[in-house]
């Protein structure tokens, strides 16, 4: 009897100091199917994939390819077995051409000299056959994210991989690009490739997958046929309880304008165009205004412009009627602006500092923490830190003296949120405040943000997660290619409509 499975991971257990990342997990991928792997952040998906690629050796369990047990010691072994992966963060060399990236590692050569013509021909053929349009000579950093992803797919096809793994492939795509990707995946499955699709987005799984395996907190929950299940059931399997996606909040009662952005333009660091083009909007006290959009459409630069991290090319910013366009960052902060940054490691924390020192990062210079001689008042810093840790439930190994580096992502984020909200700012700018956090932490952070609004302050939220946008915002502004292309009311609009704006297919 012919084996129907392309790859099987049977009873895999992988332990790390302190935690069991994979606890007796079984995953069987049939030939020619699209198999979804569903789980929250930290459910053990990436560990399982690292085991499959030989980056970790499991303590227990075996991997079978076509029914035979195989030993995978490093990514090369996985490659030889025909397993390829499109990583969530693309593994592309940015200053290389598309072609160079595709052939890297399996370069056609004569005595070590590259033979690119051959490779080019093969790439063009593959690109025709699967409808993956790329320009082989374009440099990666100049092309769109969608095209970069197609390059990654071509990389796998060029290696004649049979088992294709897509790790959260839709996070950075527009709804239209997602649709295109779904078609490509279906086409690949039809050609006999076996696809493992890692995601936590239920809609996409329902649309494209044949079967779905669910992980939760390192444990295997089960495998279901998509045809016989519902979104609700999958969601229950994923989080272990009925989640309610709705954040409880009263209707907004907006009052005075706290932030008035007038025709601002911000240059881009990545390319010669402006990242933010002539953008104007207002935020009032008592409302949450959300900037929605696909990653890389100018949201980051917009926030840099408002917070003062980047200078404006033109335009004006008023806070509470006062012109703050030229004010330094410190002055803006003292005047009542708080900023929960997008990248907590890049901007939000000094990782080598202790938790307590990070908690006073925005106010260490106040008389409470520095005396007239310029000496730090460490006892006050300790007291303050202990209060915030208590109030915001920031957990860490050694309390105030834990190095920030040693804390979990969720608790790092909680520390930043505690620091920024406790300043009691009249304007809170929160960029992707819940990225990479588990459900509990997300709920907590959402509550804090709503409470801050209800206390009569303005909130500007930037988020890529449509669910979060829909749940939290009182008004939605959609950004596309550096411009605000629409203002929507979350009660009147749908995710689909928002998608059209985000993709530039519709504008007001």
């Amino acid at each position: 009897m012919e084996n129907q499975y392309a790859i099987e991971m049977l009873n895999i257990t992988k332990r790390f100091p302190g935690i069991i990342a994979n606890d007796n997990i079984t995953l069987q991928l049939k030939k020619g199917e699209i198999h979804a792997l569903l789980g929250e952040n930290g459910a053990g998906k990436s560990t399982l994939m690292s085991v499959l690629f030989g980056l970790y050796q499991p303590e227990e369990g075996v991997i079978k390819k076509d029914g035979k047990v195989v030993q995978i010691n490093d990514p090369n072994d996985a490659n030889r077995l025909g397993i390829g992966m499109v990583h969530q963060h693309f593994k592309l060399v940015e200053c290389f051409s598309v072609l160079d990236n595709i052939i890297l590692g399996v370069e056609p050569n004569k005595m070590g000299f590259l033979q690119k013509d051959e490779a080019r021909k093969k790439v063009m053929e593959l690109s025709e056959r699967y409808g993956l349009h790329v320009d082989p000579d374009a440099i990666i950093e100049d092309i769109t994210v969608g095209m970069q992803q197609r390059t990654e797919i071509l990389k796998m096809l060029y290696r004649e991989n049979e088992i294709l793994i897509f790790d959260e492939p839709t996070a950075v795509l527009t709804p239209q690009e997602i649709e295109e990707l779904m078609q490509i995946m279906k086409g690949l499955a039809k050609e006999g490739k076996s696809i493992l699709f890692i995601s936590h987005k239920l809609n996409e799984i329902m649309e494209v997958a044949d079967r779905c395996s669910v992980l939760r907190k390192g444990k295997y929950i089960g495998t279901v046929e998509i045809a016989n299940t519902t979104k609700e059931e999958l969601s229950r399997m994923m989080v272990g309880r009925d989640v309610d996606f709705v954040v409880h909040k009263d209707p907004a009662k907006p009052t005075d304008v706290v932030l008035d952005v007038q025709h601002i333009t911000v240059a881009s660091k990545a390319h010669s165009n402006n990242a933010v083009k002539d953008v104007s909007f207002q935020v009032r006290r008592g409302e949450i205004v959300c900037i929605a959009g696909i990653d890389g459409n100018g949201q980051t630069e917009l926030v840099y412009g408002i917070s003062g991290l980047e200078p404006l090319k033109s335009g004006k910013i008023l806070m509470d009627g006062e012109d703050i366009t030229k004010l330094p960052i410190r002055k803006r902060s003292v005047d009542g602006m708080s900023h929960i940054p997008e990248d907590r490691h890049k901007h939000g924390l000094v990782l080598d500092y202790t938790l307590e020192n990070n908690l006073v990062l925005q106010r260490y210079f106040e008389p409470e923490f520095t005396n007239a001689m310029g000496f730090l008042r460490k006892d006050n810093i300790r007291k303050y830190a202990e209060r915030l840790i208590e109030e915001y439930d920031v957990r860490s190994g050694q309390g105030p003296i834990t190095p920030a580096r040693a804390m979990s992502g969720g608790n790092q984020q909680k520390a930043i949120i505690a620091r920024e909200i406790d300043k009691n700012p009249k304007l809170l700018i929160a960029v992707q405040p819940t990225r990479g956090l588990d459900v509990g932490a997300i709920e907590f952070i959402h509550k804090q943000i709503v409470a801050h609004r209800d206390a009569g302050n303005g909130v500007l939220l930037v988020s890529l997660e449509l669910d979060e946008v829909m749940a939290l915002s009182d008004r939605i502004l959609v950004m596309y290619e550096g411009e605000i292309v629409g203002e929507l009311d979350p009660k009147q609009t749908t995710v689909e409509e928002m998608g059209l704006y985000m993709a530039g297919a519709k504008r007001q």
Partner: protein
Amino acid sequence: MKEKRSLLRNDGFQTFAASVLCIVLGLIVGYLALLIINADGAGKAIMSVIKNFFNKPTSAARLKYFGQTLAKTAPLLLCSLSVLFAYKVGLFNIGAAGQYCLGVALALYLGICKQWPWYLCLICGICAGSISGAVCGILRAYCNVNVVISGIMLNWISLYGTNMLLKPAMDPAGKDTFRLVSKAKQALLPTLGMEKLFNDKYVTIAIPIAILMAIVVWIVLDKTKLGYELKATGNNLNAAKYCGMKENRNIILTMVIAGGLAAMGGALYYLSDFTQWNVNSSSVPGMGFNGIAAAFLGGLNPIGSIFSSFFITHITDGGGYVDLSHYCAQIADFISAVIIYLCGFVLFFKTFLNSRLNKAEERKIEKARALAAAETNKGGKA
């Protein structure tokens, strides 16, 4: 939750252990080199390097040479503080050597040619080093020039500049500058009676000043708002900018202070008249580079620097006592270079030690858990 942590876990202890390990390995490598050169006298030679002033026969002479070692420690300590201070702010001040030269240049020029008193010479010397540091800092902050490369370039510029400036102060009898004793007594550093204590006129206030600076650097880095800002800038430039610190100002200020410290070392050393500047010198003085060694060997701690500076001076001086018919004094430089090389592994050593400790601890916990499980099982059965 507070646990009692073992001594091995203590960061300070780990740093200390790593430094001692570096020293021991460095000496072993030095000994091996001596063995290769000439096996017969190697043991005696390495002992004379380690003994330094203890090689002297009488206790009075030992005290005198101990004083001289201290006098040479002072400038090295200041150079190492300069390197350390910049390193804490994420900058590698390899330019300490050049800043040191400039300190010497201004101090001697003003002392000998202008007959200024010692304190003005000292202050102007410090300023010269600070300005050179500022150039490095400005280039780093506004032009993104790597401080290592600009530091090296400034080292050579400073060296030739110093030679040019000190030409008029040259004693025609040789290639060196005049002795201060003969031409510029007003520029000599006061000794506060330590001269008598050690019976050596080179033991001056430079030594207490240097130690005082180490304490000041420690306080500034550890206890003040300035230190908080500077270290934050060094650890994460973006975060510093994000929370409104003036990150460029902080970089420049750091280099100004670091430059001043190194220059202070140079000025103090030459104003003690211990040595004279050779106006044809064609290599950058090693003091700045040894400062790097001392800073890292001291575990990047200002107080640690006091001891590591003394140790490095001690063995460098000790190099002078080897039997010159077979060996050369530079064996000591060789040993300190090996020690710095090994200092590069301190982080590796600590990670290694910690992971070993973690593993051991885990095994203990696992065992305890298994034991507890067995207990409950028994309990359940009973």
